């Protein structure tokens, strides 16, 4: 079948449909609600601040898509590194 289609130079519209669907679903499936991303950001900073002194005004956080994969990319400028173990602080 496939070679016949190519023979007659006919595009199968279903292939186009599938390709477009797969692409749009990558976006749909990874679209994070803004509130959720904000919450993630706040919690991340909280944890990181236990270990590092960071510049929380310059933090960039977002999902980046490349072809068919998605990555959580964060750019967090570090101001200083804490030299003590955070849990030992209160003892």
């Amino acid at each position, binding site marked *: 079948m496939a070679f016949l*289609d190519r023979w007659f130079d006919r595009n199968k519209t279903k292939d186009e*449909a*599938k390709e477009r*669907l*797969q692409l749009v*679903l990558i976006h*749909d499936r990874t679209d994070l609600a803004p509130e959720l991303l904000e919450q993630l950001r706040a919690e991340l900073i909280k944890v990181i601040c236990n270990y590092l002194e960071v510049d929380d005004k310059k933090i960039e956080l977002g999902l980046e898509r490349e072809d068919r994969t998605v990555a959580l990319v964060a750019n967090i400028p570090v101001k200083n590194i804490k030299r003590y173990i955070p849990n030992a602080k209160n003892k």
Partner: protein
Amino acid sequence: MVARTIVITSGKGGVGKTTTTANLAVELAKIGKKVVAIDGDIGLRNLDVVMGLENRIVYTLVDVVEGACRLNQALVRDKRIENLYMLPAAQTRTKDAVTSEQMCEICSMLSDEFDFILIDSPAGIESGFRNAATPAQEALVVTTPEVSAVRDADRIIGLLESMEKRGISLVINRLSPKMVKRGDMLDISDVVEILSINLIGIVPEDEAVITSTNRGEPLTFQAVGPAARAFSNLAKRILGEKVPFDELEHMNNKGILGHIKKLFGV
């Protein structure tokens, strides 16, 4: 008796939720199961006309919730077949007239008396969908082999998964064997691959669906034609019978086409 509660949903409108609900209900009742079909589409009810029970409605689901009648008074019994009931939605109210908790309450009241509770969900992902989906343990996601319907189905599947439904199965409706053959329609393997959930029914495009709705008689009452046969197989699979899906075994086009030809006598 503890009923299996199944929501029939899709995200997108017009893909065949109500038709699937009505025909599945009839098929299960024909097999001897006691079935109630609930119209979850408050304000835009249609299960009544598809089942041909629109003239028999006295009370609705909203009346039950508001205490204006007892649950049994709102149930419409289908006189054409034993064991089949419908609980209509209110037409002059909105989705906010009931809550998810109230839907759960109604379903738990029905659960002791029925084998199956089928809930016809409204289109969309808002409160109407949530009200319909919350009481259900299982879900049938209906889609057509079109980009927009499959996309919405994917969204709904994500929501159902986050609601921790354990049985989510796919029904592909209005499949045109001719267009699949030409390569102008997503085929079964495409849709299953994209959505990656369990396929439980394939319903071919069939004019009988419209003519039977014209008459207000679910097409499974007559049990002829490709769509009627497909709904009958769907009911059997829901009951755990292994009605073969040849196309799942040969996922290439040729296998599927061969199966479709055989299935529909093309």
